């Protein structure tokens, strides 16, 4: 999304008269170094995005402590998965991994992160029907009270409930260790979100 904006900005810069443009680089800024963070999917990205990990520059003495802390906080990494995870972290976020290039977003895009998205086709769900669906499909991982379990993250009281399309995407495309359920209907998702919205955050 951002790269589109930057590319478009460059096109517009090229169209400007030279007199109004100062210090404009003649070439596009380099693309951020591609960092393979796919391995984080199973352990980290249910709670935070991969950028949180990719920006760190830690030694092989520091990473085990961070992984321990995160396992204590709920990362679902099993004992025998720790060494492979550490090996991957050493590859992308070690002390000598080189400069980290953060993404930038416009203030407008930033504001969108904090707004509600209209329910659209996911509006008008029935919380009573949603309760049965939730108990059957969601509660095993997210817990009966939707405050999260060993595997699933907390849902009650969280901003994703303001963003039904994001909620639907997570169900249909999966997230972290959550499998994808592409066949879930709009009506089912509407019922589920209606129920989870009715639950207290604490």
């Amino acid at each position, binding site marked *: 999304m951002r790269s589109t*904006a930057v590319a*478009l*900005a460059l096109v*517009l*810069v090229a169209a*400007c008269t030279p007199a*109004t*443009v*100062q*210090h*404009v*680089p003649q070439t596009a*800024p*380099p693309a951020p170094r591609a960092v393979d963070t796919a391995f984080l999917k199973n352990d980290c990205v*249910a*709670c*935070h*995005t991969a*950028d*949180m990990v990719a*920006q*760190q*520059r*830690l030694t092989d003495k*520091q990473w085990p*402590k*961070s992984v321990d802390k995160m396992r204590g*906080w*709920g990362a679902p990494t099993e004992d025998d998965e720790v060494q492979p995870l550490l090996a991957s972290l050493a590859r992308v976020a070690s*002390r000598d991994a080189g*400069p*980290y290039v*953060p*993404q*930038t*977003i*416009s*203030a*407008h*895009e*930033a*504001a969108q*992160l*904090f*707004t*509600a998205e209209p329910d659209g086709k996911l509006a008008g769900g029935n919380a009573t029907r949603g309760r049965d669906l939730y108990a059957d499909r969601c509660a095993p991982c997210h*817990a009966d009270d939707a*405050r*999260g*379990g060993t595997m699933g*993250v*907390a849902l*009650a*009281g*969280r*901003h994703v409930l*303001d963003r039904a399309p994001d909620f639907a995407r997570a169900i249909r495309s999966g997230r972290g260790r959550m499998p994808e359920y592409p066949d879930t209907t709009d009506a089912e998702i509407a019922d589920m979100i209606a129920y989870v*919205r009715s639950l207290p*955050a*604490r």
Partner: protein
Amino acid sequence: MMRRREFLETGTLAAIGAIVVGSTRILAATEPVHDLIVRSFLPENLETPIAWFDRLVIPNDVFFVRSHFGAPRLDAARTLRIEGMKPLDLSPSDLEAMPQTTVVAVLQCAGNGRSLIEPRVPGVQWGHGAMGQASWTGVRLKDLLERAGLPGDARHVQLEGADVPPKPSTPVFHRSIPIDRAVDPTTLVALKMNGERLSHAHGAPFRLVVPGWAGDHWMKWLRLIRPQAAEAAGFYMQTGYKLPKSPVEPGTAVKPEDMTTLTTFPVKSLIARPADGGTTHGGTQEIAGVAFSGFAPVAKVEVSTDGGTTWQSATLEGDPGTGRWQVFRYRFKAAPGRAQAMVRATDGKGNTQPERPSWNPSGYFWNAWHRVQWEVV
């Protein structure tokens, strides 16, 4: 990265960037681009580009955002519970009907500058931009505590926000502040930031404002204020947001009993212009930035353009105040070639910035002399 930075600092391009994203704001030619640096999308941690720090107030839309677990569900009608002998549940309009106070104050994340600490430490790898200054309007916490009947044995005030940890095993983010700071007349429950209702990003409908103290105390999405006899327990009071009681060698492991809760942020200054790695035209150069201290008003800001051999006083703009920043400016003439500037501030209590940062295990309170280099053409 360098290219991208230069790119951001071009006024014309800034205006184009605004057109691209459909902003209706009309930008002055010199205004930096309305962008934020993403430290993480979830939780939302967004940093203000350094070019903005040449002014007294940072606009809300580019003001940095810090969150521990991601925003809670939107709830404009959230009530604020204040415990006491006569507990209160107040709506935003209840608070709005009470006497309002406005303070201008710096909000700065304790971890601002963490990415500059050596040896590196884990945490959000902020550059310089996890800080900003705004006017904050709301009700004095003292008034609210009195109205709710402050118990005689209260020594601390526990604060909780509505944000929810992602797992039941993740510690809740909370703060506990000592009673004397809670009843300080500058401590507010704010409803407004720069005259506008707080946005969800900044803690709507209520956030605490604790001028001079690090941002972890400025609880967002505030829902509970509880006076109590003892400091609250929990990870974020007992382990997080701690500093060594006395300076330690970089890289040292510090025992928990040798750590203390961080509160007041130290004296600091930062150069917004010229940009590090940028280019200027020959002739008069203006060094501009901000300086502040949580302990006292700024007493002086000095700039060196010769690598620290000599220092000259910069002029200050804006009202002085504790926990409040002023803009500094210093002008000098430079011929084409490499140029450099360093800045250091001293506050009214004689605290001055160190040449090198004081290392600590979590990388808090970076406040070394800020240095920039640029090319005069």
